């Protein structure tokens, strides 16, 4: 892999992380608001919301590496008619801007709650479109290892999985700081936190199932349409693939199960920090490895 592909790897992983985090935060927020009112929901998600824009900003920064310079961002836009790369640029910039507006409004409490929520959901939707666009960039008919339905499926799985676990960690950190400042406020939040973590843990386990389900289909596709890619995958990077699968299983399977259990019982708040942070780190590394394989094994048809 060259620098350009590393830049794209960072761009897609961070971009998907940001989009997934916003989606999961919006869901958690709706859940908290329904259960305990808007004020508690604000308290729960306002802090974690601050991660979305910086992460997306970093993603865009790394994408500049493959667009060579800032001026080129504008030059990359004109072919919206047929180029998914053009579309991706426009969508990614729109996403970060609207997510930024939403964060600002939420932070400063500008405008009525309903308006803020609507903007938040619009940003979320654009984030999901961004994941779709990212996948379409690779659906080139001369790249058989990319041009398969598993590309969008895995991109969306990564989006949700990374987003969910990043939000779990952010929620726990946010809760810890509330608890430290004001034990009473913390108590009200604990219930919400536990509910959200249970939901996230279950989501992670389901997504793990999807990733493992998709794998044999992907391998079969490589076997029939991209033999060379399959060869590189199994011969050169077999170990990488095995480690990736192990890590995602540990993070989204084993640790997520513990997270679910410990979130269900009271008095286990301390372990939540360790569990959510280690689950996130393991899955992040696993997804980076998965994306690495995606780039390292593609072989174009022809000369």
């Amino acid at each position: 892999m060259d620098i350009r592909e590393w830049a794209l790897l960072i761009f897609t992983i961070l971009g998907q992380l940001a989009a997934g985090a916003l989606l999961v935060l919006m869901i958690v927020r709706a859940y908290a608001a329904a259960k305990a009112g808007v004020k508690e929901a604000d308290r729960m998600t306002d802090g974690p919301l601050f991660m979305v824009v910086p992460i997306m900003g970093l993603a865009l920064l790394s994408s500049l590496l493959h667009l060579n310079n800032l001026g080129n961002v504008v030059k990359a836009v004109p072919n919206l008619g047929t180029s998914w790369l053009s579309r991706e640029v426009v969508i990614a910039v729109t996403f970060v801007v609207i997510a930024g507006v939403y964060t600002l409004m939420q932070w400063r409490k500008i405008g009525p709650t309903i308006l803020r929520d609507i903007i938040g959901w619009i940003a979320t939707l654009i984030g999901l479109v961004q994941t779709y666009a990212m996948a379409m960039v690779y659906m080139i008919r001369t790249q058989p290892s990319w041009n398969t339905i598993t590309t969008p499926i895995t991109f969306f799985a990564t989006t949700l999985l990374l987003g969910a676990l990043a939000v779990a960690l952010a929620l726990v950190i946010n809760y810890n700081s509330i608890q430290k400042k004001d034990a009473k406020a913390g108590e009200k939040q604990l219930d919400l936190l536990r509910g959200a973590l249970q939901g996230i843990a279950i989501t992670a386990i389901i997504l793990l199932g999807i990733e493992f389900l998709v794998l044999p289909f992907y391998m079969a596709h490589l076997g029939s349409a991209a033999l060379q890619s399959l060869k590189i995958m199994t011969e050169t990077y077999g170990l990488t693939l095995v480690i990736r699968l192990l890590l995602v299983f540990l993070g989204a399977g084993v640790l997520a199960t513990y997270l679910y259990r410990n979130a269900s019982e009271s008095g286990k708040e301390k372990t939540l920090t360790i569990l959510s942070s280690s689950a996130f780190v393991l899955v992040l590394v696993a997804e980076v490895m998965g994306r690495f394989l995606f780039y390292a094994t593609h072989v174009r048809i022809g000369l």
Partner: protein
Amino acid sequence: MEKQLAFYFDASACTGCKACAIACKDRSDLPVGINWRKVYQYEGGGWVSHPENKDLLIPSNLFVYSVSTACMHCEKPICMEVCPATAITKREDGVVLIDNTKCIGCRYCEWACPYGAVQFNEEKGYMTKCDFCQDLQAKGQKPVCVDACVMRVLDVGELDELRAKYGNVSAIEPLPTSDLTEPAVVITPHKHAQTSGSGTGHILSVEES
């Protein structure tokens, strides 16, 4: 019917001498690593034991032939489709050109083109490829690759006319199947030529091509 300028290549008589590739490189002063025209040697078959003497190996279906390639100025140019900067355009006469003032060097077209025709100039920061010697053709002359060929196996002309004269073959190994980009090329196959997508051989020394 729209006009479409095309290459003709007679694989049955090409000796693989690479004079075309060298002439092209010279005409456009291409740096090391960039070759708009390339000649691939495709070989296949193998050696089997002699039926009466196991230790004696005899050739079985051994073959090798050469394919001279450049940008195919495709009718469905995937390079142009994916380029985000609209730097790649297809002229009225079918010639596909890159505008290097528009190219941002993202190399997306390089991922897409199945002929390896678009090549990145690291130093200049933009993508380059065969321009069909448009300056010479405008003056009624032939491209230098065509003129340089000692075996007279290369030519240019209207795609329809070339097809009427030489037939419809546009995809022999190691070229990709033509449904991908509909290349503007007419090939007279070598007698051992294998159809694209069903090849049993391989390219000899890729680095050398």
